[in-house]
């Protein structure tokens, strides 16, 4: 279909739908005056039921834990798909040298960049670890902490260059983190069934309110998610950055 026809059809669809959107937008509850009951019920009963103070983590890992299990495996599936696509097409001959584009000047890394990256990347990884561990008391959790740790890995790449970065991280370790995290989550769901409870029932001791180690089984699922997200994003960065490397045949030219 021609681009112009496509936009014209889109405009037509927009004109037909605009009254419907107007009607829906004015019929929704006013902004700031929600009328649903589930959220306030979670806020009211959650701290006493699960002894955690971060209700978003409680919803994610306990009250709606099966949804998060599904999201976790969606993450695993998408990352596996991307890695398979990239590795399958790339082949096995690669070096650590960057691919050279003719006529494009190569600018080395500035010393200040290397210094800042060396100072900040361990700090950021530590901060990500702190965020992932304090899931039950302060804003944070496995998802956020995992992505922050992965961005710390990126800063390491900026500071060390590709060759140094590959020496630090190994692809099997990241793959083990990712798969191990998802496996930990699934086992945390299955283990209570072995003890006679329901799937992902919170059978561990719940701990005291406002303590870092409160929440019971939520800590295990949170750890699983954090490992999986860290490993997954690290693998994605690794596979994408490998695409910009020269092949063996170009390297010896």
């Amino acid at each position: 279909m021609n681009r112009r026809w496509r936009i014209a059809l889109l405009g037509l669809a927009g004109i037909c739908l605009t009254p419907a959107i107007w009607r829906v937008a004015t019929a929704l509850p006013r902004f700031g005056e929600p009328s649903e009951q589930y959220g306030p019920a979670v806020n009211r009963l959650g701290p006493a039921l699960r002894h955690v103070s971060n209700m978003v983590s409680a919803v994610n890992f306990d009250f709606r834990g099966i949804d998060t299990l599904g999201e976790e495996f969606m993450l695993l599936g998408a990352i596996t798909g991307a890695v398979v696509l990239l590795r399958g097409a790339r082949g096995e001959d690669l070096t650590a040298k960057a691919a050279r584009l003719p006529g494009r000047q190569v600018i080395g890394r500035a010393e200040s960049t290397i210094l800042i990256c060396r100072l900040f990347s361990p700090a950021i990884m530590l901060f990500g670890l702190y965020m992932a561990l304090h899931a039950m008391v302060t804003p944070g959790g496995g998802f956020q902490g995992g992505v922050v740790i992965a961005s710390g890995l990126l800063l390491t790449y900026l500071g060390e260059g590709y060759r140094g970065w590959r020496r630090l991280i190994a692809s099997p370790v990241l793959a083990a983190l990712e798969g191990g995290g998802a496996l930990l989550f699934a086992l945390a769901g299955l283990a209570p069934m072995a003890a006679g409870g329901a799937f992902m029932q919170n059978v561990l001791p719940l701990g005291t309110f406002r303590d870092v180690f409160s929440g019971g089984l939520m800590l295990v699922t949170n750890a699983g998610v954090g490992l999986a997200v860290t490993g997954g994003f690290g693998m994605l960065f690794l596979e994408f950055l490998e695409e910009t490397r020269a092949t063996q045949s170009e390297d010896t030219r």
Partner: protein
Amino acid sequence: MTVLPWFAAAWLFAIGIYGIASSRNLIHLIGCLSVCQSSTYVLLLSVGYRWGAAAPIFYDHPPGTMAVDPVVQALVLTDIVVGATVTALLLAMVLQVGRKYGELDPQKLRPLVARAHR
């Protein structure tokens, strides 16, 4: 102000769809897709907001203070991370298309046909 968030979300979605339909570069298309995704985040979080309420984290204030809805926040937060990995999968596919055809314009791409080995 009472209906601004709904219209902001609708606008973001509409402009994202327009970007996808009128895109001349597959990578630009994926960026517009992420704008569509962000419209759902804005809508969900605005549904849960309550005037004068605090965050649903009862570490500094005692449980029982008025807080916003934590369920939609849980939905959006996992969605953001998973959406980024789906974007990565789409980018990997675009990379293969760019390699095979040397061309990233959606108009100029043709379906795969059996072609003689070059």
